[in-house]
C-alpha cells in the first residue's frame, strides 16, 4: 500500500503546489477586502463628525423630507450591496465554514422572530446615530449655536404637532431631534463601556484562570468587592463630592495643571464620569464568565496536545483558549449594552449623569420629570419609549445570539 502512496504523492505534488498558490491568491483578496472595509469606515467617520455639526449639505436640501428619504435609501442600498459583496468574498477569502455552519447559525438566528426584530432595532439605532445630523428635522440640539432663543421661547413644551412631530421639550427644542441625537450618546456610551469592560474582564479573567493559585484568589477577592459595589450609589456619591471639591493634579513646583477633577465632571456634560464609573465597575460579570470558561477549556485535551507539541503559555491562551470562549463574551457584551443604556438613563433621571446641555434620553426624562403625571406627559413618554425599545432590541438580539451560538440547542 505504501508503494501506491509514493506514486500518488509524486503525481499530486503538482496539486499541492496548486493548492498553495490558491491560498496565496486568497491572501490578495483578503487585502483588497480589508482596504475596502477601512475605506468605508473612514467615510462613515467623516460623515459622523462633520455632517453632524452642519445640518445642511450642498445641493441636497436637508430641510426637505423627500431629500432625507433619498439619503436614507442610498445608504441602505449601499449597505446591502456591501453585504452581498462581502458575503461572496467572505466565503472565498476566509475559505472557512464551507459547509453550512455559518449558515446554520444564521438560519437558527432568523427563526427567532424576537431576535430579528432586535437586530432591526439595533440597525435603526445605528443609522440614527451615524446620520443624526441628516435625519433630524432640526439641527443638533446639543450645539448651543443652534439654539434659537426666540423660537424656543415661543414653543416651550408643545404637544406633538405638524411642525414638531413629537412635540418640543421644556427648553423649546424639538423632541424628535433630541431623541435622534440622543441615540448617539446611548450607542457610544454603550459600546465604549462594554468594550472597555470586556477588555479588562477578559485580560484579568485569563490571568486568573490560567495561572491559578494565589493570583486567582487575590483577583477573585477584588472582583467580589467590585461586584458588591452599589453602582448608582457609588456614582452619586462620587459626583456629589466632585461637584463641590476640586482636586487638581499639577506638576510639582510649577503651575502646569495636568488634570483637575472639576473639568472631568463637566467633560461631555457629565457623561465622562458615567463612562468611567461604568467601565470600572462592569467588568466583573465578564470576568466571571471568562474565568469559568477558561477553567473548563484549560483542561481540555487539545490544550494538552498543544503543550505536547511545545506551545508556550502565551500561544496557548491566544490561539487555543480565547477562540473557544469568544461566543459567551459576545453575548454578554451585547446584553451589557442594554444595561448601560438603562443605567445611564437612571443616573441622568436622578440628576447625576448627563448634565445641563447634554443630549441624552435620560436627561430628557430628567428635564420632563415634573410633568410625568400631567397632560404634558409626552415629555417623559417619548424618551422613555426610546429607552424601552432600544433595551428590548439589544436584549432580544443577545438572547437570539446566545441561542444560535449554543451548539447544543435543538430547537
Amino acid at each position, binding site marked *: *500500500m*505504501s508503494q501506491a502512496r509514493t506514486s*500518488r504523492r509524486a503525481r499530486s505534488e503538482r496539486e499541492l503546489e496548486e493548492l*498553495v498558490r490558491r491560498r496565496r491568491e486568497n491572501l490578495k483578496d483578503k487585502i483588497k477586502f480589508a482596504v475596502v472595509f477601512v475605506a468605508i469606515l473612514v467615510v462613515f467617520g467623516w460623515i459622523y463628525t462633520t455632517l453632524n455639526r452642519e445640518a445642511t449639505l450642498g445641493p441636497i436640501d436637508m430641510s426637505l423630507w423627500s431629500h432625507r428619504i433619498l439619503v436614507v435609501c442610498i445608504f441602505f442600498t449601499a449597505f446591502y450591496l456591501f453585504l452581498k459583496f462581502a458575503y461572496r468574498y467572505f466565503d472565498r477569502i476566509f475559505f472557512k465554514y464551507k459547509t453550512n455552519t455559518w449558515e446554520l447559525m444564521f438560519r437558527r438566528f432568523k427563526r427567532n422572530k424576537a431576535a430579528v426584530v432586535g437586530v432591526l432595532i439595533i440597525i435603526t439605532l445605528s443609522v440614527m446615530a451615524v446620520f443624526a445630523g441628516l435625519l433630524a428635522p432640526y439641527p443638533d440640539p446639543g450645539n448651543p449655536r443652534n439654539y434659537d432663543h426666540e423660537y424656543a421661547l415661543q414653543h416651550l413644551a408643545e404637544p406633538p404637532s405638524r411642525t414638531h412631530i413629537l412635540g418640543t421639550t421644556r427648553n423649546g427644542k424639538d423632541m424628535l431631534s433630541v431623541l435622534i441625537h440622543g441615540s448617539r450618546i446611548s450607542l457610544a456610551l454603550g459600546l465604549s463601556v462594554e468594550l472597555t469592560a470586556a477588555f479588562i474582564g477578559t485580560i484579568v479573567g485569563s490571568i486568573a484562570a490560567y495561572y491559578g493559585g494565589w493570583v486567582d484568589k487575590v483577583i477573585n477577592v477584588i472582583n467580589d468587592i467590585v461586584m458588591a459595589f452599589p453602582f448608582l450609589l457609588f456614582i452619586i456619591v462620587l459626583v456629589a463630592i466632585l461637584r463641590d471639591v476640586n482636586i487638581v493634579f499639577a506638576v510639582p513646583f510649577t503651575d502646569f495643571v495636568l488634570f483637575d477633577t472639576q473639568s472631568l465632571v463637566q467633560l461631555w456634560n457629565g457623561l465622562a464620569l458615567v463612562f468611567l464609573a461604568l467601565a470600572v465597575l462592569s467588568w466583573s460579570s465578564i470576568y466571571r464568565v471568562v474565568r469559568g470558561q477558561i477553567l473548563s477549556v484549560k483542561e481540555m*485535551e487539545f490544550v494538552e*496536545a498543544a503543550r505536547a507539541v511545545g506551545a508556550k503559555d502565551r500561544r496557548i491562551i491566544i490561539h*487555543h483558549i480565547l477562540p473557544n470562549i469568544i461566543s459567551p463574551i459576545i453575548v454578554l457584551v451585547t446584553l451589557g449594552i442594554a444595561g448601560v443604556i438603562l443605567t445611564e438613563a437612571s443616573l441622568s433621571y436622578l440628576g447625576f449623569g448627563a448634565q445641563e446641555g447634554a443630549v441624552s434620553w435620560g436627561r430628557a426624562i430628567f428635564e420632563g420629570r415634573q410633568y410625568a403625571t400631567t397632560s404634558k406627559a409626552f415629555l417623559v413618554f417619548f424618551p422613555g419609549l426610546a429607552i424601552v425599545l432600544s433595551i428590548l432590541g439589544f436584549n432580544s438580539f443577545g438572547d437570539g445570539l446566545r441561542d444560535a451560538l449554543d451548539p447544543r440547542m435543538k430547537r
Partner: protein
Amino acid sequence: MKQVNDSLLKVVDLKKYFSIAKGMVRREITYVRAVDEVSFDIDHEKTLGLVGESGCGKTTVGRTIIRLLDPTSGQILFSDDHQQTDIAQLKSRQLREMRRNMQIVFQDPQSSLNPRRTVRDTIAEPLQILEGLKGERLEIRVLELLEDVGLNPEHAQRYPHEFSGGQRQRIGVARAIAVNPKLVILDEPTSSLDVSVQAQILNLLLELQREHHMSYLFISHDLSVIRHMCDRVAVMYLGQIMEAGDIKEVFRDARHPYTRALLSSIPVPDPGKKRQHIILEGTVPNAINPPSGCRFHTRCPFAKSICSTQEPREYTAGQGHRVKCHFPDLQFD
C-alpha cells in the same frame, strides 16, 4: 561493536504521586500513588504495550514520560546517537528541543483537536514551533502529512467537526508524526472508535511505524489489540508493573495471577471456546492507600499470608520475562 545502550527509552523507577490536601484547618497532605516505581525499556522501532484496567496508572505513565506531567522521582533516559538524556531533568528550552523526539496520540479524537482551528492549523502547529517551518514549505509538508495518514489534501481547510471519529484520529496521528519523532506514545488510540474503524487505524499505525522507523508505547486496556500491535508487554496494576516480557511468551505462559485473570476475562468471539474465567472478587482498591505487601493480594485467588506483609521482588522467569509475585512458578489450572 554492540551499543552500550540498546534501548531507545529506558525508564528507571519512575514515580508520580499526586498530592491532595485534605481538610481545611489542619491541611494534611495525602498522596495518590498513581505510578509507584515503574521501570521498563523500549527498543528502537519496537512497540511496548502497557496494559491495565482503569486506575492502574498507565495513562499517567504515558504523560509523565513526555513531561506533560512532571515526575515525582525516577529517570527517563532517552538514547539518541550515543547520547543519553534524562527527560525527567530537562528544563524548558531543552525540553522543547526534546519534544521533537517524542509525541503523543490521545484517546479521544473529539477533545484532542481544537474545534476552532482548521486541520491545517492543527497539523502545522508542531511544524511551526518545533521545526520553524514557514510559508510554502510548511503548507506542502502539511498536505504531505495528510496524505500519509490517508486523508485528502482538500481536507486541510476543514474543521474537526466535519469529520468522523476515525478521520479525526488520523488527524491526531498526522500531528504526532509531523516532526518525525523517534518515540510515539499511543494513549488508547482506538478505544473510542468502532471495531471496523479501529482496524483501519491500527493498520495505519503499523504501516507508519515501518516507514518512519518509530518506537511505540501502546497504552490500552484491550488485550487483543495489544496482542496485535506489540512486541513486548507490561501489565500494570495500581501503579506497579506486575509482569513484563515478550508478548508471545506472556500471553502463552502468564505467571502473574492478575495477568491470568485478565487473559481469561476477555470475551472471545468464538462461541465454541468456553473459557474458564478466573473471576476476581472485589474491586480495584484506592491508590491513596494501596494494600500492604503485594498490591494485588486483596483480590488474588492464590494469596498466602506472606502476600499481605511483604512486597514481592521481581523474579525473572525467562529471557526478559519479569514477574512481581511471591510465587512466580505457581501452576494454574
